[in-house]
């Protein structure tokens, strides 16, 4: 069934003709426009003075009940009295999500001609906004010559959002004289008002100030062409307590009464509640058609003549709305033929609607939803479909507009998720099931999500006969969710199959429709690329993820871009290309910063890659910082690649710091876990194997390292090199050379422009390969060949400052470099880290304990070699001692340093300055 083909409210009007503004969203434009002040408005100098006097205060508060005249007071003041930059935003309940709130504030600045620099960025997710974005905004405001006034109308709608209030306070505090905030609200905002009050920095316009005085009442009534004596004005002011809405209604009712004077007298003498009574009176004075239109359109925030016609089933809305506007009764124009009903009157009218037409409300909501949906105003349509209880319509609209991606990413995600959380379990059909599947997948409940997805697939409209646009939208949405599910399940085959279905469904869509939903394509490509990455299809993953990055710029795709860039960085790193990896990682971080993403909401992948590159360069402090940020993300527990790689890098950090024994248990756990989850990833297991072997090597147990590879055969160039390394250390140099011979000979090391060529491993793998080969030929006695290989390794490593391979190469390399200092003549970047660290005279903490018994010269020799990660056998050979003698020295070292194992002894010796 086609949504667009449904008839709407008797078929009145074509909503596409006038509904949409040039920038595509009349409702948004209305929120950013300073409301028009009607001709009957009475400017009250005492209030204008109050507002203008506070021009140097950072904060102005206009507090008062509904209908007190707050909005018009400020609107009049900013248009007439306040020169300079003014940005206006009428707040909506959805803005209690900070990301949404700030993106509209930034929108308001730009809409009102305040040219913000691009580098401030804009939030891409509804949740918490990272303070760095707010700090950039505040700093920019602070640096301006003239202040900007930001008016937030109807702020009470987000009164409960403490995060929004905190962030506003932060920006206000840091913007200095650059920002003047005017808050219009029925309730006090959650700002520390006492502090502003005490500092004399708050202009406070309250209900008492807003209330009309008797002489002001005279002026108001006079504007409506009614004469009023001073005494009558006093009594009327008393009766209404100076309440602007009451006075306005009263005047309107009196105007329409046969005898205005006696009407006023009767009203003054009466005891009914003011708004209720007067509204009834004013309503009664209008023709039946007008009353009917007002009651029916009271379910809308904003109305349009065609929309009103759809609700009344007549075609007279245009003249009626124009007449109401002329009479300044109930409605105000907000541009582009749209009108807004005064919220107070709308509220009371809704009560009357329920009394007069019980049960009509859901039907009105359904008609509004259909009209708004046809006009392309999906965001406005969905809440009405929900209020109508017509969940099949709501789901069909979301799918039909290709907006399923907005449930998963972008600013609207939280709101749409909350809206569809109310969906009735009875709602059936593929659209409803797709919405349910998307919500479950977004909440990481994969089993539930898959169950709904399967049910949706069973009821999919078929390709041939029912090849309408709507059927194509359903099939495309389903395929995109299947790609996501396949990614979670770790199946590249399923993801690729689903992506092919998506491409086929796309062809049945009218041209240009998908381009309006860039997030759908970006999401699908990112998920597909992630699945391919997991499966080790690196070339396919790289091109898919690059396509995701290039798909479309803009906020709705920012998170997908952040994720895709992070994964591209990982692919670069895995192929040993630190330069490209770092560039992609920095782009990913920049994308997150621009979007104000807090660290916890980022994917962590980019920081992971930065940490890995830093470890390779032996910049352990930087690496530690990056790893801490990874651990702070939610992805660290959910994304298997992040979880595994984090454990691997932590183990590499421990090895680099001399605690090789401590590195092993976490890797063991990982190896077991990773195999449990979904479809196993070949390369992820390889990475765990390599890290485990490296830890054994560092621990001086090359036999254990070799065993690791014997249990799991190596395939990738990286793991073949790692196996060769283990074999050389275990004394199997010939065998190691055999393994290395299987690899393509690195020829292009160090030359720019060769990075990134498919099939050509990057410099990191080359360097490890060359060093391992050098160690093997050195062990076989060919020192000259070893020297030449080391020289090539140094040249390949220099552009990226890859220190780690040299640091972990073992004592043979130190010996070689000591014998041939010329080798490192051009490599100062390396030698500073390679030369033995001078024992820094450190301040000793009491906690370190009493000075140990001093070590003998021989014991020191052994300890030094221990710190160079030599095995007992290697130390024995190096010092021309027997293995048993070395073991005796070791026991004595352990006793004197109160250590039980090598890593601990080395660490303790460093703490004591013995190394």
């Amino acid at each position, binding site marked *: 069934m086609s949504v667009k083909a449904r008839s709407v409210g008797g078929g009145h009007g074509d909503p596409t003709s006038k509904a949409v503004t040039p920038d595509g969203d009349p409702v948004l434009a209305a929120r950013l426009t300073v409301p028009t002040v009607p001709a009957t408005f009475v400017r009250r100098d005492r209030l204008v003075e109050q507002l203008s006097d506070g021009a140097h205060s950072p904060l102005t508060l206009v507090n008062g*009940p509904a209908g007190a005249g707050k909005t018009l007071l400020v609107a009049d003041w900013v248009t007439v009295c306040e020169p300079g930059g003014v940005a206006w935003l009428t707040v909506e309940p959805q803005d209690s999500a900070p990301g949404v709130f700030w993106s509209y504030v930034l929108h308001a600045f730009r809409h009102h001609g305040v040219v913000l620099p691009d580098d401030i960025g804009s939030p891409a997710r509804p949740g918490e906004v990272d303070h760095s974005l707010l700090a950039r905004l505040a700093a920019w405001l602070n640096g301006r010559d003239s202040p900007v006034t930001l008016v937030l109308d109807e702020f009470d709608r987000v009164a409960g959002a403490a995060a929004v209030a905190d962030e506003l306070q932060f920006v206000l505090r840091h913007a200095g004289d650059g920002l003047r905030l005017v808050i219009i609200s*029925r309730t006090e905002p959650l700002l520390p008002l006492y502090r502003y009050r005490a500092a004399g920095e708050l202009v406070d316009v309250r209900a008492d100030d807003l209330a009309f005085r008797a002489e002001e009442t005279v002026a108001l009534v006079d504007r409506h062409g009614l004469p009023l004596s001073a005494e009558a004005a006093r009594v009327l002011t008393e009766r209404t307590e100076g309440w602007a809405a*009451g006075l306005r209604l009263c005047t309107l009712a009196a105007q329409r009464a046969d005898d205005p004077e006696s009407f006023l007298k009767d009203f003054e003498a009466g*005891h*009914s*509640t003011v*708004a209720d009574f007067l509204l009834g009176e004013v309503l009664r004075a209008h023709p039946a058609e007008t009353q009917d239109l007002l009651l029916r359109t009271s379910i809308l925030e904003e109305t349009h003549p065609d929309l009103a016609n759809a609700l009344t089933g007549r075609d007279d809305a245009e003249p009626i709305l124009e007449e109401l506007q002329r009479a300044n009764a109930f409605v105000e124009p907000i541009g582009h033929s749209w009108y807004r009903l005064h*919220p107070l009157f709308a509220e009371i009218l809704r009560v009357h609607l329920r*009394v007069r037409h019980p049960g009509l409300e859901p039907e009105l909501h359904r008609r509004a939803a259909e009209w708004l949906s046809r006009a392309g105003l999906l965001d406005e349509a969905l809440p009405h479909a929900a209020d109508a209880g017509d969940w099949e319509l709501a789901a069909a609209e979301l799918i039909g507009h290709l907006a399923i991606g907005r449930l998963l990413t972008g600013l609207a995600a939280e709101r749409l998720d909350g809206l569809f959380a109310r969906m009735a379990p009875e709602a059936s059909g593929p659209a409803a099931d797709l919405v349910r599947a998307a919500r479950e997948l977004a909440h990481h409940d994969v089993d539930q999500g898959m169950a709904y997805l399967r049910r949706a697939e069973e009821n999919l409209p078929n390709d041939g006969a029912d090849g309408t646009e709507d059927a194509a939208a359903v099939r495309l949405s389903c395929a995109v969710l299947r790609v996501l599910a396949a990614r979670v399940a770790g199946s590249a085959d399923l993801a690729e199959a689903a992506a092919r279905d998506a491409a086929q469904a796309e062809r049945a869509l009218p041209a240009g429709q998908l381009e309006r939903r860039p997030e759908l394509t970006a999401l699908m490509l990112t998920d597909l690329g992630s699945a391919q990455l997991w499966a080790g299809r690196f070339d396919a993953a790289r091109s898919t993820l690059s396509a995701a990055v290039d798909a479309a710029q803009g906020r709705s795709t920012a998170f997908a871009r952040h994720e895709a860039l992070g994964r591209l960085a990982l692919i670069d790193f895995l192929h040993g290309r630190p330069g490209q990896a770092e560039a992609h990682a920095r782009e990913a971080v920049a994308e997150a910063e621009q979007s104000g993403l807090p660290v916890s909401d980022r994917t962590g992948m980019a920081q992971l890659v930065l940490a890995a590159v830093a470890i390779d360069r032996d910049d352990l402090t930087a690496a530690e910082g990056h790893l801490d940020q990874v651990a702070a993300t939610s992805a660290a527990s959910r994304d298997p690649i992040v979880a595994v790689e984090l454990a691997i890098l932590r183990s590499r950090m421990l090895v680099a710091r001399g605690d090789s024994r401590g590195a092993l248990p976490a890797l063991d756990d990982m190896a077991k876990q990773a195999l449990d989850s979904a479809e196993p990833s070949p390369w992820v297991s390889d990475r765990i194997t390599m890290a485990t072997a490296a830890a054994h090597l560092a621990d001086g147990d090359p036999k254990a390292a070799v065993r690791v590879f014997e249990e799991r055969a190596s395939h990738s160039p990286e793991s073949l090199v790692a196996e060769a390394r283990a074999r050389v250390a275990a004394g199997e140099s010939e065998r190691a050379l055999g393994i290395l011979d299987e690899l393509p000979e690195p020829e292009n090391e160090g030359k720019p422009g060769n990075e990134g060529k498919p099939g050509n491993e990057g410099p990191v793998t080359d360097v490890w390969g060359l060093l391992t080969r050098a160690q093997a030929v050195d062990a076989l006695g060919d020192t000259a060949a070893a020297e030449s290989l080391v020289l090539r390794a140094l040249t390949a490593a220099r552009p990226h400052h890859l220190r780690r391979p040299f640091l972990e190469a073992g004592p043979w390399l130190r010996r070689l470099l000591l014998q041939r200092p010329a080798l490192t003549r051009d490599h100062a970047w390396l030698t500073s880290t390679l030369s033995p660290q001078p024992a820094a005279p450190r301040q000793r903490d009491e906690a370190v304990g009493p000075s140990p018994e001093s070590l003998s010269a021989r014991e020191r020799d052994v300890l030094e070699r221990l710190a160079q990660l030599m095995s007992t056998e290697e130390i024995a050979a190096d010092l021309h001692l027997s293995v048993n003698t070395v073991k005796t020295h070791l026991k004595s070292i352990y006793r004197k340093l109160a250590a039980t194992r090598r890593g601990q002894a080395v660490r303790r010796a460093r703490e004591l300055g013995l190394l």
Partner: protein
Amino acid sequence: MRYEIRVDGEMSDELTTAFPELDTFVVPHQTVMYGQVDDEAHLYGLLIRFQSLGLHVAEFRRLPE
């Protein structure tokens, strides 16, 4: 929790339907509404409903059980 809320002015029968959970009677110059209030969220919701309908709450008190 039972509460009694006094609103300034005499509310019309139509308007009292906006508070179906409360009983209502009118005294001179005031409307008295009373009934069960489930929890604090309900309490704040009621206050917002009074405010959005332009009603002035004169008194709000908890009744003894």
